[in-house]
């Protein structure tokens, strides 16, 4: 759910340097020429033939189609497999910038895991009055079935995808923590493969930190969280997918393949000898770690939604008995709930004793009367989001909305204020894309992927850069016409 204020149109000249930027451009906002991390790339680009680059761009699309890296769009039966457009201009992050992000993300993720343990046990943070009880008690993302559960290794969020935006040289904000089942990591890996194939010469000139070890790190990290009671010599990991019609099926298959884990669906699994096991050609095989890409509500029809056909009946009981690791743990959604988001700095301070390194976007909680009246009188300048929404749906981007849309949204907001939060429109940074006429600035965000094991937090240097392909557009979600870029983190 990204947004940017629609300030003045950025006045770029074709492939050139002139820009009346109201936004921070990560390539060209330098005092002189390209900013440091982009210098080598920019020189290279200046000497490239635009025609050749455009041909490469077409090649990339063919490549993605061939390997089948597609996503399905809900409610569009006919065109059910779509490509996410890929832009061949990389997003480049300097070593120094990355180091700060890394520290900030690690701090956040550690605090979130401590918070989750606490909220499903003694609830010290509520007793201490640091966050209001109503934030938890009235919250659908709170999962009572997790009360008193001790996840193996103490890890709740094995995989996180922290969404960051940038507004200036040193200004990074966290938009969302995505600690349920974040997706997109396959794009990070395939985008890099594509760039390596297309522009090997750039990788010899620049020290780009590799991302390709992510699947092995994921495997190691999940294995380290396996339950101690396993009868298997080495932890057996499986990826649970809703099936081939799920929008992220490609990614599920890709990750299972790259990790060397089985890709399983509901009907492959049964409870056998007190453990979850998968049906193989030679009988049932016990699973130690289930990396599930199925939402909490569908995970166990015996415990949650009884109509779910995507889950594993009884898995929550096996989990409570300590016989399987579920990654991510059920109930983690309480930590990335949008109403809770505004308390993240307090949460970090409560559990780590430190100030938050990464900034939060200022947030008005519409449940509070003062905030609500402010939001109502400033709708045209604000972004208003549903507390439980995701994917860019059900939100109002004030500066981009018509009077009619604002009026309609105002009615919804008045009817159920607690359902909404509001944030100022941030001036998101831009990174150029290759347009028909050369480089053109487009707004971006960044989702680095974070792996948490009992003794380590590992952040892959890179991530998924999402880019709004339409000129001036504010929403980078793939379901709403966004594209992706390869993200290069430079070595020292």
């Amino acid at each position, binding site marked *: 759910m990204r947004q940017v204020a629609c300030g003045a149109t950025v006045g770029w000249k074709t492939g050139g340097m002139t820009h009346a930027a109201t936004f921070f451009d990560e390539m060209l906002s330098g005092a002189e020429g390209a900013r440091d991390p982009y210098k080598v790339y920019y020189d290279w680009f200046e000497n490239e033939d635009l025609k050749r680059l455009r041909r490469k761009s077409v090649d990339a699309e063919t490549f993605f189609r061939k390997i089948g890296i597609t996503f399905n769009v809900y409610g569009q039966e006919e065109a059910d497999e779509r490509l996410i457009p890929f832009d061949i201009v990389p997003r480049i992050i300097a070593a120094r910038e990355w180091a700060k992000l890394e520290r900030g993300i690690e701090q956040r993720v550690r605090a979130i895991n401590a918070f989750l343990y606490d909220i499903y046990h003694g609830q010290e943070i509520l007793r201490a009055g640091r966050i209001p009880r109503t934030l938890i008690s009235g919250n659908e993302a709170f999962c009572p079935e997790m009360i008193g559960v001790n996840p193996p290794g103490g890890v709740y969020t094995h995989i996180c995808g922290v969404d960051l935006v940038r507004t200036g040289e040193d200004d990074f904000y966290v938009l969302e923590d995505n600690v349920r089942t974040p997706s997109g990591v396959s794009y990070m890996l395939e985008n890099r493969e594509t760039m390596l194939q297309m522009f090997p010469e750039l990788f010899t000139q620049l020290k780009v930190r590799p991302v390709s070890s992510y699947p092995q790190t994921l495997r190691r990290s999940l294995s380290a969280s396996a339950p101690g009671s396993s009868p298997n010599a080495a932890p057996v990991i499986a990826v649970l997918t809703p099936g081939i019609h799920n929008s992220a099926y490609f990614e599920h298959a890709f990750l299972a393949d790259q990790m060397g884990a089985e890709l399983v669906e509901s009907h492959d699994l049964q409870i056998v000898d007190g453990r979850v096991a998968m049906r193989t050609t030679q009988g049932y095989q016990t699973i130690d770690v289930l990396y599930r890409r199925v939402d909490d509500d569908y995970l166990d029809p015996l415990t949650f939604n009884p109509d779910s056909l995507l889950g594993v009946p009884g898995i929550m009981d096996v989990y409570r*008995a300590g016989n399987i690791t579920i990654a991510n743990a059920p109930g983690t959604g309480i930590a990335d709930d949008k109403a809770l988001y505004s308390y993240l700095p307090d949460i970090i301070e409560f559990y780590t004793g430190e100030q938050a390194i990464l900034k939060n976007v200022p947030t008005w909680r519409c449940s509070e009367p003062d905030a609500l009246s402010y939001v109502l009188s400033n709708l045209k300048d604000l972004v208003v989001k549903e507390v439980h929404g995701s994917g860019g749906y059900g939100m109002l981007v004030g500066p981009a909305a018509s009077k009619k849309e604002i009026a309609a949204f105002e009615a919804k907001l008045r009817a159920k204020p607690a359902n909404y939060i509001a944030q100022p429109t941030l001036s998101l940074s831009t990174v150029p894309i290759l347009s028909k006429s050369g480089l053109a600035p487009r707004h971006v965000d960044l989702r680095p992927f974070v792996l948490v094991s009992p003794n380590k937090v590992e952040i892959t240097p890179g991530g998924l850069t999402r880019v709004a392909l339409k000129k001036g557009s504010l929403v980078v979600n793939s379901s709403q016409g966004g594209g992706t870029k390869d993200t290069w983190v430079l070595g020292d």
Partner: protein
Amino acid sequence: MGDDMKLTITHKTTYDYDTPVHYALQKLRLIPRTGHGQTVLNWQTEINGGEKQVTFDDQFVNHTELVKVTPGTTRIEIISTGEVEVHNQNGVIGQHNGYAPLWLFEEATAMTAAGNQIRHLASLVRQETADLDDVARLHHLSKAILSRVTYETGQTDSTTTAEMALSAGHGVCQDHSHIMIAAARVLGYPARYISGYLFMDGYDQQDATHAWAEIWITGLGWVGFDVSNGISPDGRYVRVATGRDYSDAAPILGIRQGVGAENLHVSLQVQQ
């Protein structure tokens, strides 16, 4: 009011399936805990036609067992037997245990969501009991429920909500408890559901387990109210499982793959 009692319980549940079972699980909350005025002297669960998979304490600290029905079988029998010593505490259960916070019991669930009927009943009771203390007020509520909802079997089932039962005007102990819980929550009290056993003099053979409600009263802690019998639990009551409503505390909850019907039969003896 009974005094301290030693109760012997034999509880047998039988499921008959008209086609052999392919895959089925049963979750059992059938083991009473020692504490809160009762001492479990001995207790065992025997399963015929199924195997225990895991045993654990759930989020409300209920002893829970997950059982897999033996594939290909057409009958599973679950037999609980044991002896429990119960002290009469006049319904006062006392302190709250476990990590589940008290506020969780203030929140409505799908089965205990208050509609117009329950809200109306609650506000009536509030007016009528303005001068009474908590215990008296809740006994008043309990009586008000029983006078509106007569005890009648076969009219409601395990999916009937509190609001539905109050509108219908008849129900069983589960419905009485749900209405009590829903109305108590509207009045601002944390409330919970208890499933368990009741010794009934002269009724050696029972065909269902019992259920009642517990309400949190500041200063006393949890206090039991058996709406169906118009009293607070005494030495004849054995607490087995608790939760926010029936679905949290159900003695047996199953899931089954495949076709065909199942037939449930319960045989229960609670003896002194």
